[in-house]
């Protein structure tokens, strides 16, 4: 795996924040790699384990636990639709359906272990997320790091057009 020098420097710096145990740096290091590569590959898991003097299974446990870490490549724009109670009641499932229709994403292969579906052209990817902390303005979703509130399912196409 080819980790660019500046990313590795950033990672090394992050590790210095945890002088007692390097193990504690696992999450920030994984975030650095995911920000750069888009997702956490098997190679990345092994790279992090070697970096922190751990066994790869210790890192894989983390990556598979936190839904924030992706193990497959997302699209250019990764959408996360909240499906927790308030948003679900406000129509997040319809929003998901509409977004998939508009972006031509097939979610039939999605499962507990493979939560992400990617559009044919690779531009958009989508997954359900748990509470995004804006329960009063549901349904809400994240597109990469942009937060969108009260997204009407009918206006899904408008949302996507912002990312053309």
């Amino acid at each position, binding site marked *: 795996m080819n980790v660019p020098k500046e990313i590795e420097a950033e990672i090394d710096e992050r590790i210095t924040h945890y002088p007692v145990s390097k193990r504690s740096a696992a999450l920030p290091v994984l975030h650095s790699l995911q920000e750069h590569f888009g997702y956490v590959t098997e190679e990345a898991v092994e790279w992090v384990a070697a970096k922190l003097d751990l*066994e790869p299974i*210790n890192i894989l446990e983390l990556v598979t636990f936190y839904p924030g870490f992706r193990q497959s490549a997302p699209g250019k724009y990764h959408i996360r639709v909240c499906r927790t109670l308030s948003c679900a009641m406000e129509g997040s499932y319809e929003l998901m359906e509409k977004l998939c229709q508009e972006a031509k994403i097939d979610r039939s292969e999605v499962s*507990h*272990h493979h939560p992400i579906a990617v559009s044919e052209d690779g531009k958009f990817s989508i997954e359900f997320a748990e509470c995004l902390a804006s329960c009063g303005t549901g349904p809400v979703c994240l597109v990469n790091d942009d937060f969108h509130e009260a997204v009407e399912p009918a206006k899904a196409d408008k949302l996507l057009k912002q990312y053309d």
Partner: protein
Amino acid sequence: MSEANDKVNVQIDGEWHQFPKGTRMIEACRLAGKEIPHYCYHPKLSSPGNCRMCLVEMGMPPRPRPGEDPPKPDKDGHLPIQWIPRPAISCANTIAEGMGIRTDSQLTNECRHGVMEFLLINHPLDCPICDQAGECRLQEFSVEFGTGGSRFREKKVKKPKNVDIGPRIRLDDERCIMCSRCIRFCQEVADDDVLGFTDRGSHTVLGVHPGKELSNNYGLNTVDICPVGALTSNDFRFQMRVWFLKETNSICTSCGRGCNIIAGAREDKLYRLTPRDNNEVNSSWMCDYGRLNFHFLTSEARLTDPMILEHRAHRIARWSEAVGRAAEKLKEFDASKIAIIASGRMTNEELFMARRLGETLGIEKIAIVPRSGEADDYLVSADKNPNTRGARLILGKKVDKQLKEIAAGVKKGTITALIALDENLLKCGFEEDTLKKLDLLISSHILANPTASLSHVVFPSTATVAEKRGTMINRTGRLQRLNQAIDPPGQAMDLWEILRDLAQALGGSNGVYLLEDVFKLMAGTIKEFEGLSLGKIGDQGLPLLKPKESIPLLERERERIEKGIIVG
């Protein structure tokens, strides 16, 4: 500090007891005769407290509010107990002065029922085809604390089944109850951190990291400590229902460690060896090599009858005929021309009978075959003979050096008769051509081998694994007992019996009939054994010699006990 200060008063189910400070609640209850059901807790591993099965109702003396009178002790000096409405895990909490524990209250029982119901939600109902059935904690506690039926109407979570996680172990993830004992064993004892939980949550899956495997030499211990049928041994699975096994306490003889074992056998067939607790030898563990080193017992090459070489071919002989022939031939030789090659795999009793035979005939040259290999940093000893210490004690320290002298003597022709006991001479410095020059070669073997082919008289002998009784002294000087779990095949006999019969044929009755007689003689001759008997040795063995040798795995375990990480 006085003894009373080191002790803590604890009330368990209404009765007051005293236990040492720092005792875990679960251990205190066990000592009070109240076994608390548990899955994740293991005295030799850290206590994460994740299974929740050992929840108990707990209470402490009330703390008076400001201005309130302090609680009054009863006539025995015990303070009243204020019961805490929420349960506590007994595995990771230590006792405190005045603590009360209820192991059979309504709250405790409700907790156990609740935990069992959760554990059984996703557990398959495949006990009839599960290898663990009969020694499954989940099955046992279901009987005690489960309900007859399930309230679960939804779909069970599907998980990987029949997963090959290493050369000797198979995993069924649906049966796993996530106690994490195997993970902790690999991390804390075997230093091979390959197991882990992925997808934690409702789909938690135990597994090895992709591309890795659980292949370390202690891996099969995870199968023993798995409370359910998630981890099974490739060697033992589907071979025999555990409730049919007759269990015999013995020791492993694959190296000088002498790990304590339980031999599981049925109808004279050995099915498995499992480690038996002994905190002076092997803790609760044993290596995979020793555990699986018994399949040769049923080898095709097994010798089952005595044989006599006649007209360049071996023929089967009756026992008395073979003994008679060997004795008759031995009488033809001057004692200085005879040598005995004994084995470090023989029991003390067998070695003693070899010594007696030597003394009867006046033989001075007696040796054992050294077997050295690699030690690991855990239990495996570099000495691959299980009883080198016994051989040196009984036959004298010279036994190590004499092998070369005897081999040279045979080559020169100064030794013309050899008695080889359970050793293949071609593997220990003798050449086929020189052995052919011998006028007499008497040998005993478990399996057919080139030395047996060259022998004039061959006796079939029994294996130390499960086939004989006796004692051995391990590397750390502990005298331990072997017990017989199965009858040997055909006419095979223990070496002490073969040597007893041979000595009788040579010099008349010597009053030795039973193994106990041999031990008695030995105790009367060798001062280290003075006052001992087979019964006195017991199942945990006795420290007999005090060599300067330590067991790396035990050293580390003692450190962890010291630090309070494990109970031990």
